[in-house]
């Protein structure tokens, strides 16, 4: 780390502008990097000690959040508080807040969808936003040309997402992890570029406006009520998503995903159809992106290709990584933190992506498990362990 220190100071030079010389910035960054390098060294040392400890068999204490989940006494009241809060939210807070919350919830949904692909099946998908775009555009176009309503398109959008997921997944899932990342990234960009250039089909960069908001059995709402209505749709869809993902996780296919993530060769030896399993993960993930896309289009009533850039994919990836790959509660916290915090901290909005980038690196280095790491279902046979301990003594 001593070696990097001089570089960190020299790095400052790029900040100087052509016309104005910003010596002050240089000075600040110099001091900042000096202290940061010490913090970094300390953290690395601590981390290495931690790994050593776990190698010697000392297990870490279960974190607070997992204890809440485990013990019913604490878990049920928390659940009730959270759900009451979720229910009264639109009546207590303003329309603006509700709108932000809907955005947050859309990202929760996207995060949960991507979590199936990245967290459970271990396939790094950098083109996830393509499926989101597919969903949004299928609603926008169907609505524009044929006047089809929200509820009719929701399953169609989901289906379109799944269809594109399979379309892409079929050829590329033979590839190894990092190639897959690049190809999906390429796919995401292809979709966006097509939407931008194919004017006759998607109205190009100008996008589609005046998409109708969802209605309940033909009753049209005012803007205010429609937002609240959308909020409740979102909450129920999230609940549905959580239910599905939760059931999937412990099902045969969910376990096959986790096993595939850990070791492909061993999986094939155990008779898991690698391709079909990966394909289902891909398609299911894409389904959720498609649904989220439909809701996004209904919420903003205007879409254009600029909403579906690669950075959107990376934000969603950030959510999953930050929250903890594979853990549902982690992803929900991750999404709410990452989407809501920037909304309330408008002053720092310029630095948002910078911080996201930093967070990705720091999380990977120091806490690969995320804020709320996934707890794997483990089976422990107490007897043997006790014997072991006795023998050791």
């Amino acid at each position, binding site marked *: *780390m001593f*070696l*990097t220190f001089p*570089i*960190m100071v*020299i*790095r400052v*030079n*790029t*900040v*100087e*502008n*052509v016309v104005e010389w910003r010596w002050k*910035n240089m000075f600040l960054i110099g001091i900042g990097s000096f202290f940061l390098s010490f913090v*970094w060294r300390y953290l*690395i040392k601590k*981390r290495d000690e931690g790994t050593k400890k776990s190698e010697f068999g000392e297990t870490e204490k279960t974190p607070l959040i997992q204890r809440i989940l485990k013990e019913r006494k604490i878990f049920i009241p928390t659940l009730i508080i959270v759900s009451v809060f979720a229910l009264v939210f639109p009546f207590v807070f303003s329309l603006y807040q509700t709108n932000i919350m809907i955005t947050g919830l859309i990202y929760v949904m996207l995060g949960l969808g991507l979590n199936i692909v990245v967290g459970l099946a*271990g396939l*790094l998908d*950098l083109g996830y936003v393509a499926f989101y775009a597919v969903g949004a555009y299928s609603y926008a176009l169907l609505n524009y040309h044929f006047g089809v309503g929200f509820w009719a398109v929701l399953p169609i959008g989901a289906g379109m997402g799944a269809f594109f997921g399979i379309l892409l997944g079929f*050829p*590329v899932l*033979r*590839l190894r*992890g*990092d*190639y897959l*990342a*690049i*190809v999906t*990234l*390429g*796919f995401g*960009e*292809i979709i966006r*570029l*097509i939407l931008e*250039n194919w004017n006759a089909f998607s109205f190009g960069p100008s996008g589609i406006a005046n998409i109708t908001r969802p209605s309940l059995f033909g009753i049209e709402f005012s803007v205010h009520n429609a937002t609240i209505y959308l909020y409740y749709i979102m909450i129920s869809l999230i609940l549905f998503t959580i239910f599905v993902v939760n059931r999937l996780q412990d099902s045969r296919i969910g376990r096959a995903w986790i096993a595939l993530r850990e*070791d*492909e*060769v*061993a999986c094939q030896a155990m008779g898991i159809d690698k391709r079909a399993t990966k394909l289902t993960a891909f398609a299911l993930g894409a389904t959720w992106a498609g649904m989220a896309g439909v809701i996004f289009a209904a919420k903003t009533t205007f879409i254009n290709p600029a909403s579906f850039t*690669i*950075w959107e994919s*990376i934000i969603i*990836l950030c959510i999953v*990584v930050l929250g903890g790959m594979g853990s549902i509660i982690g992803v929900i916290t991750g999404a709410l933190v990452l989407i809501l915090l920037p909304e309330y901290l408008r002053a720092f909005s*310029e*630095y948002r*992506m*910078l911080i*996201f*980038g*930093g*967070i*990705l*690196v720091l999380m*990977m*280095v120091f806490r*690969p498990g995320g804020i709320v790491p996934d707890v794997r279902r483990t089976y422990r046979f107490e007897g043997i362990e006790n014997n072991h301990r006795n023998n050791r003594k």
Partner: protein
Amino acid sequence: MEYFLELLLGGLTRGSIYALIALGYTMVYGIIELINFAHGEIYMIGAFTALIVASVLTLQGWNHIAILVIASIAAVIYSSAYGYTAEKLAYKPLRRAPRLSALISAIGVSLFLQNYVLLAQTSDFLPFPSLIPEFKFNAPYEHIISSPEIVILITTTVVMILLTFLIKFTKLGKAMRATAQDREMAMLVGVDVDKVISFTFIVGSATAALGGVLIASHVGQINFYIGFIAGIKAFVAAVLGGIGSIPGAVLGSLVLGWTESFFTGYISSDYEDVFAFLFLVFILIFRPAGILGRSETDKV
């Protein structure tokens, strides 16, 4: 015919710049099997450093060639420093972690550097001074191949030759090849693996920086976003030639440069990037190991 020749040479120039960037990808991948997402950003930083140095020196009234040389040297030094730092901070602690973590970390670095430049500099396109003078002897052929293109071709060739020499005949090159083959074994026979990996990052970043300077003075403008597309395309080129193989990277870059050049020249320029990506998808589907690559079987 002349149009064809123009496209051919244009493709060659394009290809050689991709090659300069692709070399870094392929070298890093060859040694630690990591797709260095931040590589495109290193290239962008190279271009920015050169821009800053060049404009400062222009204000001082230096002559063109001196500016070009100093700017390139500065770009190479800074980019190498960034490459080295990125490796130390973001990849080295993850050497034993699963590959997915390193990849995500690389994406993080890329995002960080991009926004760092965006905030520290500007989000607009900056004009890049054309530093390369017009050669007198080239005047009659100016409409087919411009002087900057000649400089690009010569530089690329020289860099390739130097790099081949470095890897084939020096002790360090030997150590690099050993590390690529089997890291643990290399460690056992006394190769300082960490040093070799750092060195690979430095060399890769330096070539990328050269590419950055050259392309920036050729195209004439840069912004913080150029690294992304260039990085992806160079990656396509590296995969096309067989990732991990250095002659493969060069070959792949030239093929990609030509196909793009002819595609935009004869068909349409709207879908140029779409085409590059589609090309990548098809290569990976039909020949995942690339033109010169060997296919590997999974080991338990």
